């Protein structure tokens, strides 16, 4: 067993929207079950359970997951017991760190009423809007399909919850424009990025295996680029997400501009404590604190450039 000792002399704490997080790691929504909480005590700076919707969702029929090179595609369909049952059972997620709640609705009004429902719950420190879900009023296009709909839903949530930070979780497509729109509408932070649209095919059976979202190390460079670009154009903090699998990955995301970093799929295949441990070693060797990393790449010319201007 790994002894979960706090390394002395390394400052892991970061501040996000006025909340003090004792480490910059946050579980990505939908990747940490109640049953697995015993394995992660001391790892995360905040808790973030699976997305809650207004009423229970059964989720999609199986198969729901498929492995891909250095990643996986999932199509879970937001299976959850609905916000009331979710809140009834929320205390299990109290590990002594701030609790963030991820919400999703079918309409702007549903998003707003979820935020209203959470506004007075003192256990909840922040709300993350899962904007990758389809907006049934816009022909099923995701809420983050464009800046106009991002602005509308974030503004409605902002009006519904005034005294808790709102994080808008964005997908990679159009992320810079959507980030600007979310900030303008009052988001306190941006989570960048959600899974990438992906497909797996069973060639032998000649059918689609899983049509869903790609996560894992395969998407890390895409997510890093999004964090780098977004953090260059907004004032609000960015929470990096996408393929974080090692302590070095955490450092890379923070250097690229993230204030905190979400660990998702990697927690299926590694002990998240090892990721924190590696990050701690990185800080110790660099004689830096966690918060000093954020955005440290800014103003430093990239050594290598690709086929386009950076």
């Amino acid at each position, binding site marked *: 067993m*790994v002894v979960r000792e706090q390394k002395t002399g390394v400052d892991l704490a970061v501040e996000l929207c006025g909340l003090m997080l004792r480490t910059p790691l946050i579980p990505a929504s*939908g*990747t*940490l*079950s*109640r*049953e*697995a909480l015993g*394995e992660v005590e001391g790892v995360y700076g905040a808790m973030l359970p*699976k997305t809650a919707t207004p009423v*229970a969702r*059964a*989720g999609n*029929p*199986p*198969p*729901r*997951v*498929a*492995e*891909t*090179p*250095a*990643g*996986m595609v*999932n199509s*879970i369909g937001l*299976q959850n017991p609905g916000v009331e049952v979710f809140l009834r059972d929320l205390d299990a997620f109290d590990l002594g760190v701030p609790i963030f709640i991820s919400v999703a609705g079918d309409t702007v009004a549903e998003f707003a009423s979820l935020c209203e429902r959470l506004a007075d719950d003192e256990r909840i420190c922040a709300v993350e809007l899962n904007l990758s879900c389809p907006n049934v009023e816009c022909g099923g296009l995701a809420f983050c399909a464009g800046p106009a709909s991002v602005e509308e839903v974030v503004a409605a949530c902002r009006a519904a919850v005034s005294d808790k930070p709102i994080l808008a979780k964005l997908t990679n497509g159009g992320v810079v424009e959507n980030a600007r729109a979310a900030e303008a509408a009052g988001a306190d932070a941006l989570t960048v990025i959600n899974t990438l649209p992906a497909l797996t095919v069973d060639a032998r059976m000649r059918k689609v295996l899983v049509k869903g979202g790609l996560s*894992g*190390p395969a998407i890390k460079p895409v997510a890093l680029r999004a964090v780098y670009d977004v953090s260059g154009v907004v004032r609000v903090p960015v929470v990096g997400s996408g393929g974080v*699998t*090692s302590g070095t990955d955490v450092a890379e995301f923070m250097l690229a501009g993230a204030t905190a970093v979400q660990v998702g*799929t990697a*927690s*299926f*295949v*590694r*002990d998240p*404590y*090892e990721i924190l441990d590696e990050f701690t070693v990185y800080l110790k060797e660099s004689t830096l604190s966690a918060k000093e990393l954020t955005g440290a790449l800014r103003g430093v010319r990239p050594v290598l450039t690709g086929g386009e201007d950076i």
Partner: protein
Amino acid sequence: MKFYKVKVEEREELGSYTLLRYRWSDGPVEPGQFVMARAAGYPETLDPFLARPFSFYDYDGEMASLLFEVRGRGTALLDLAPTIEVTAPLGKGFRIEPGLGRAALLGGGIGVAPLKILGRRLDAAGVPHDVFLGFADAKSAVVAREFQGAEVATMDGSEGTHGTVLDPIDTLEDYGAVYSCGPNPMLAAVKLAAGENSLCQLSVEERMGCGNGSCNGCVVPVRGGGYIRSCIEGPVFRAEVLAW
């Protein structure tokens, strides 16, 4: 999920399948519980990305064993690895209720795996049982020699009864308990054949992402609607819970 590195102590080819043995101190409480396993190499390799779920084939207090079939890269690498990474015991297994009389154990293909340790535990509990094993062909049926007295059927007729695992059986309804593991269509047929009077428990084979309840990827449909996770609420379910 935390994985533990263990050395493969023994590797045996059994027809189409491989049997691995490794030292392990934390065995299954219930037969039917499972292990997430992969070839060692993390985090440097990252590929194959996910570990694979395998039922405990056997456990004697010191050595654990896994039975698997090479079906893709994950199992191909596992088949070659001198060291593997495992986490276990996971999930809910078969419940043994000694008062129910004679038990029938039905395994299909690689689904025979949990029946080895189940048979051992039934013996220990004094529960008499019959074992029925079904395979595609004689090559995959080689493992049947590990199950003394088992009735074998093969789909191509190259070994034992020509047909499915159910074909050699007159009726399952006289058994107090029915335990089965195999592909879903087989389990559905076993459930039907078991009738309503026995305690029928089915171990499902689902693809898994995490194995610890987090990803909701390994669900099965339940009666009354919705899905439940085979890694936490299963992989062994009471037959009447399942919607097929």
